């Protein structure tokens, strides 16, 4: 497997996924869309960790363990973020990121 695919190919896929997720998180107006962008970014980081584990340290389990922790944190982040979106929707009647501007002077 490591012979067939160079490590750089996997890294390029992960980098592209990260940049697409960054674009989505920064530019979507819908707050749920922003959260989806963040999930894409976390996914790309997981791909990177698994790729480095597979190619560089296959006998060491640290990479997959770290991936599991990131998935855990992503699940917690999604739960809290979506609860916040629902609370915002209830108070402001909107889910658009640029409409919630009560801190603006």
């Amino acid at each position, binding site marked *: *497997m*490591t*012979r*067939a*695919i160079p490590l*750089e*190919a*996997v*890294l*390029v*896929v992960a*980098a*592209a*996924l*990260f*940049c*697409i*997720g*960054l*674009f*989505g998180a*920064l*530019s979507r*107006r*819908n707050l*749920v*869309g922003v959260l*989806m962008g963040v*999930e*894409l970014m976390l996914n790309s980081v997981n*791909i990177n960790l*698994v*790729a480095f*584990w*597979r*190619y*560089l340290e*296959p*006998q*060491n*389990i*640290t990479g997959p*363990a770290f*991936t*599991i922790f990131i*998935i*855990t*944190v*992503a*699940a*917690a982040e*999604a739960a*809290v973020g*979506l*609860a916040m979106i*629902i609370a915002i*929707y*209830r108070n402001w009647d909107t889910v*658009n*990121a640029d409409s919630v501007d009560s801190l603006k002077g």
Partner: protein
Amino acid sequence: MDLLIQIIFGLLAALIIGAAMMVVTVRNIIHSALWLITSFFGVAALYLVLEAEFIAVVQVLVYVGAIAILILFAIMLTRHISSEGERLLTSRWWLTAIVALGLFGAVLLPTLAGQTWNIPLPTGPAGTPAPLSGVEELGREFVGQFLLQFEVAGILLTVALIGAIVIAFEERSRRRRVLTLSEEYTLRQRQQATAAKQAPVATADVAD
């Protein structure tokens, strides 16, 4: 064999990147969530190609099974406000596009040019599988080397659960009234009593 793996990897990469592009560009937010699920499945398949089976299963369980469903529920609860005629992206989206593309270039350049990874050469005779750590080591390390982090992750999940409930909780005065079990029981009894009272009248009407 190598060519087959390369073809599979290319298809998976195209699937992941294409689905991610659809996630950030498609207008309908539900379609966006469905493309996100497609992308998650593609990433899980990529883990399988990278021989991380347990991570692939966890990816499908947690991302597709939990997070995607959570996102779909959030869309369902906030749906009717996101109408079709509204703008999809923020007003300065081109700036964020430049930032994302610049980051992609800045990451890509040192990755492809000048960096040599010291990938360990396969030991032993050709054809033998590489020594690969699996679920067994993972479980052992979770109660050994990563015990503290494991416990902290558990506490984090508990705190996030409580926090999500507290944040999304609706005050009692604004909530639609939900009957308790005893109230529902008495209500049903009253309904049955009135129905029984009306029933003899109805049969009497038929008898007449």
